[in-house]
């Protein structure tokens, strides 16, 4: 089809740009949707950073409190007398 008039040329140019934009939008949408579906259907990776398993805090506190019970409180000692060097 020959483009006889500037108006027809503009119309076809608009159509071309719209079609290209539609392809770009379709591609980006397909990418986003596929990535989201990939995450839900087959996660593969760890979803969050794994942390070492630890004893419950209440257990640790109970044992620490109990350990403190076994340790006698140190008797405060007076600081040593300052002494000057003798020559």
């Amino acid at each position, binding site marked *: 089809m020959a483009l006889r008039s500037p108006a027809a040329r503009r119309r076809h140019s608009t159509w071309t740009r719209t*079609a290209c934009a539609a392809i770009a939008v*379709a591609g980006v949408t397909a990418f986003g*949707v596929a990535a989201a579906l990939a995450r839900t*259907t087959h996660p593969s990776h760890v979803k969050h950073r794994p942390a070492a398993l630890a004893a419950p805090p209440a257990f640790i506190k109970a044992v620490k409190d109990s350990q403190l019970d076994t340790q006698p409180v140190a008797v405060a000692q007076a600081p040593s007398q300052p002494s000057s060097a003798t020559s």
Partner: protein
Amino acid sequence: MHLTSSPIAWYAARGAGVAAYLLLSTVIVVGLLMAGRSSVPAQPRASVVAVHRFGGLAIAAFIVLHVATLGIDAWLPFSLTDLFVPFTNRVRPIWTGLGIVAAELLLALGITNALVRRRRIPYRVWRTLHYANWAVWLSATAHAVGVGTDRSSAWLTALMAVCVIAVTGVAAWRVTRRRPAWRVVAPATAVVAAALVTGAALGPLRPAQKPWNSATFSDRLTGNIDRQTGASRGLISLHGDGTGGQRVFVRVDLLATPDGISNTSLQLEYLPSGDRCTGEVTGISNDGRGFTGWCALAGATPARRTITGHWQASDAPGLVGTIASAPA
């Protein structure tokens, strides 16, 4: 080259592969319609050619994203050779190699497109070479069906079936359009091709899925037992790994008093999900080398699991035994 272990790169690689395949199928259908003189009504051929060409560039962009994200991701550690030299990969080399062949052939065809526009090669030669797009599409389809991580998921199987129906149907129509008696060939070809691809994806090429927070497993247990003691409380802790069908980290804590065990805790961390199952120990074996307990995993079905562990007496440091799980 492996810059990240973030799952984002891995999901992006898979998403980009799907987007590239969808666009490739669309652009091939447009190309077949153009060559079959069934172009878009009321649009000049030059406009449709421009759209076809833009589609090719969009495919190239998503292929670059697919390869780049695979390159930086540590989940499947691809070397540069693995990424660019076909059939050298350790992971399903044939199917992965077909994807590399498709990408490199597409690049070569892109170069011929540029050459024919500059009149460096005759149109007849370009047209003959352009038939290699069939090899690109067939290789890409085989790559998706043979090694695509999501190839057996319903959404990707359906998407591939639609693409195969569209491309083979239009191709068969183009070949048979001047023979009215062969009118049934195009839909029949499309249906048979889609059935073949779907059957392969769901049948012999179906990937073996790794267990995900499995409620039933029996693993080899390795670990250690630690003791912390105070005046009236003591903590006995088992921490170790379960390796086998469902990999787990295990931790069992017993809070002991002079009167016996006052409180217990049992924790499992499932890999690769990182999800945690927490509960209590309900019994300890008479010889002290085993336990029974339960844990509950939020959001899982079944949520509550019965966990048993036992190990042998050994002079070596650490313990070796078995940990098993069953639905409670």
